[in-house]
């Protein structure tokens, strides 16, 4: 069902955990829906994402998209990172099953929320 890339990110998630002294935190989802993602970011002086980590409760797609989003976001400017769409995450993973596209692909929303959070703080 899942591509090899999805399984790789599921089995070997990149950037799992929490950034210490995070500059921004984004949480999306709801345990009652079986999906919660928490993205923490560290932003450098040039508004680049210096570090980003995730913690996720969810299915294989949820974990893999979380991992992928952190990889894609790292090193990007906030403006660039905000452009990361659900579709681009899914594409980077070699595609997701149709029924997963929507419900378990919230990680880019989480990232946006973390960026918002960062901006609201500054």
């Amino acid at each position, binding site marked *: 069902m*899942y591509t090899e890339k999805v*399984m790789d990110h*599921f*089995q*070997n*998630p990149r950037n*799992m955990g929490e950034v210490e002294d995070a500059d921004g935190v984004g*949480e*999306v*989802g*709801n*345990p*009652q*829906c*079986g*999906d*919660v*993602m*928490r993205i923490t970011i560290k932003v450098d002086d040039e508004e680049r994402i210096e570090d980003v980590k995730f*913690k*996720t*409760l*969810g*299915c*294989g*797609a*949820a*974990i893999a998209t979380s991992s992928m989003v952190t990889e894609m976001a790292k090193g990007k400017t906030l403006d660039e990172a905000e452009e990361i769409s659900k579709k681009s995450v899914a594409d980077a993973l070699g595609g997701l099953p149709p*029924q*997963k596209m*929507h*419900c*378990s692909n*919230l990680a880019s*929303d989480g990232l946006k929320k973390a960026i918002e959070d960062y901006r609201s703080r500054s």
Partner: protein
Amino acid sequence: MTESIFMDNAATTRTDPEVIAAMQPYGNEKFGSPATLYALGSEAKSAIDGARQNLADLIGADPREIFFTSGATESNNWAIKGVADALESRGKHIITNEAEHHSILMPCRYLEKKGWEVTYLQVDGDGLVDPEAVIKAMRDDTVLVTMVHGNHEIGTIQPIAEIGAAARARKVPFHVNSAQAVGHIPVDVDELSCDLLTVSGHKFHGPKGVGALYVRRGVRITPLLLGGGQERKRRAGTHNVPGIVGLGKAAELARNRLDKEPARLAELRDYIIDSIENNMEDIRLNGHRTKRLPNNVNFSFDGIEGESIMLSLSYPTSRDKKPIYVSTGSACVSGTLEPSHILLALGVPVELAHGSVRVSLSRENTREDADSFLSALYEVVERLRSMSPVYKRGSKKCASGSGSDGCDCEAAT
């Protein structure tokens, strides 16, 4: 021998090599249709007669009360729609329970759209139906009570004999969906006082695509598949000879094992349940502790989601570990946004329903399999919990209690 450990036997089982061997001649060599008169047909006919006898012996029926179908789904649809059609003039009320398999619930809902009334009895926290509730629910216009024998997801075994006696006392036909019980525990249609009983081949090491409906003599039922005169005019269609022969063989093999195998499996089941309860925190056993299919284990794990547990078990990270196949009641596999309606019916909170894992054993599973599963499970759950943004040790969510209301998951995104 096997390179994986299969513990999803409630979904389907490996066809027994003896079953395959028994079927083999009927594809290519003795391929005749039993409806034909010549030798090739007679061979097929006596093979089918033998299979019918074997299945009848397994459930204490007369062979003339066995009707072969394409599986449990057909048998359930036939039982419900067929009795409803035949008895419509007597009344339009059916009794079942809310934790049934979809192949029971969906035909019931279909009939509701046609003006029938269906009572979906509540189950208790262990998934049990109260026979008293059945008695109270029966009305003069009730024409069918249908109850699952052993629940496919949580393993709970219903008090079928009591419900059967109650239905019999009111002369209401009683259907038992025994897809998960036949071949796994002793089943006797007279002891259960049932009038119709569903059998599925592939759930006890028989072939896929074949099942049966037991119909007690004298019970009125309209055929679902109309056409040729096969199965004493009650189920048309050229006989699936290899499939039926395979089902008969599976029945014979299961019957030979009924004295020891259920006890062996129950021990293995209890070993797994006890181990999990002794070694893990924030878990919840779903289904009744003892009134339970001998091959079923179902737990919820707080703070994590079932599909990711299942996937982690089936794709181990290290090469020297065998993939382990189990299933989950999480919404992520149902293709809907709702987790298992059965877990919710027990009052399991939605988040815990998402975090459930079902292990269903078979004659092939050993104590070593159980140990491999347990050590993999401990590791996987720990790892996923370490990734979880919500898991907090000892949060007591797993204490039994009524489920939360759920949320609009589509809107929540």
